[in-house]
């Protein structure tokens, strides 16, 4: 499973890269609004660090506008993937961008059928949001399972990015299902590395090491 980080914060991206688990970055307008500087500068700075897909979102409501925005975003750097919301207009734009060789990530996907439509339209990535489904007492990971089954039924090549991840169990389940990618907030990446028994074990080893290190 590939790990993307869901942030526009340069320090967090550098930290994830230094751990060696940075396969890509996803951003959205909300994440961009939390950082300083204009969006294009932020995208360029991210592309300098990450050797993988960097999702930058289009904000036009109509397909013509999204295509125009998408072409411009794609021209910023070869790593840019144009993130497009899951609407009818969005999929029209995906179809056009796909024929031009511009990679797209269809976002705000909440049903397996939306994922299938996006894949058929030519999206390189589809992003189902699991946390926001859990929020309305609907099982987010079950949707991911159904999407993986449908994509395997028809040998679809679009990659599934599990998004809106809230805690490490989402990542565990995504890995058990065999989802291609999880895009994870920085906080959850840190949580994933932790286990109390790992901490205990380290403490015990270090204490024992104290007993031997000065032996001649």
């Amino acid at each position: 499973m590939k790990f993307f980080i869901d942030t526009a914060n340069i320090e967090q991206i550098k930290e994830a890269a230094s751990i060696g688990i940075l396969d890509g970055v996803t951003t959205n307008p909300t994440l961009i609004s939390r950082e300083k500087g204009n969006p294009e500068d932020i995208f360029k700075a991210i592309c300098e660090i990450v050797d993988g897909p960097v999702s930058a979102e289009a904000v036009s409501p109509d397909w013509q506008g999204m295509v125009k925005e998408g072409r411009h975003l794609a021209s910023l750097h070869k790593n840019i993937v144009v993130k497009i919301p899951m609407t009818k207009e969005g999929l029209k734009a995906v179809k056009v961008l796909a024929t031009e060789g511009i990679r797209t990530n269809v976002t705000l996907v909440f049903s397996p059928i939306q994922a299938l439509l996006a894949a058929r339209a030519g999206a390189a990535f589809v992003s189902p949001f699991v946390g926001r489904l859990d929020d309305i007492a609907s099982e987010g990971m079950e949707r991911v399972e159904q999407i993986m089954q449908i994509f395997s039924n028809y040998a679809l090549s679009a990659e599934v990015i599990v998004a809106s991840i809230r805690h490490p169990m989402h990542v565990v389940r995504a890995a058990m299902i065999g989802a291609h990618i999880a895009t994870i907030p920085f906080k959850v990446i840190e949580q994933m590395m932790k286990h109390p028994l790992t901490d205990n074990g380290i403490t015990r080893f270090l204490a024992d090491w104290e007993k031997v290190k000065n032996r001649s």
Partner: protein
Amino acid sequence: MKFFIDTANIEEIKEANSLGLLDGVTTNPTLLAREKGSATEIFKQICAVVDGAVNAEVVSMDWQGIVKEGRELAKIHENIVVKIPMTKDGLKAVKVFSAEGIKTNVTLIFTPIQALLAARAGATYVCPFVGRLDDIAADGMDVISQIKQIFDNYMIESEIIVASIRHPMHVLESALIGADIVTVPFKVLQQLFKHPLTDIGIERFLSDWEKVKNR
């Protein structure tokens, strides 16, 4: 999974095409009756838009009549698939067309056995109707699972077109079962794209974008 649209309305067909989701069209006499112009003209118009199967239904009841009608329909355009009702005479006609290389779609299928018979007669497509089974408190999608299993058991090449689709759940279940094709009314095609959380998410992103766009 391939998407066909179940309509004879040229505007709806064009809209589906612009979404990149138009692998074929199914029509029937009821759908044709809703449009203007002769049946032949409508079929020609549809074939000009769609790069895929276009189903045109015969109305004769005896196999000789079906064969005659089907040959005429097939002449209209190479994309035409002759749609034939699931009757004994219908299957006799399918057998003749199969030998002549004319593609057929056997329609009004309600049991897995009807689907097997149609496939054995040489149908290119079989069309089980799920909504009309749900209407009589029988599980339409269950029939699709059984047809899929039987076709897999015997490596039958006929493609399954799930028809009489009423809502997106029929499409989802078809995809999970691995049916070859769904033929979807325009209204349901529109519904497939929608999710309230998608709408809410777009609103939230756009309002955050307002804060940064002029930096």
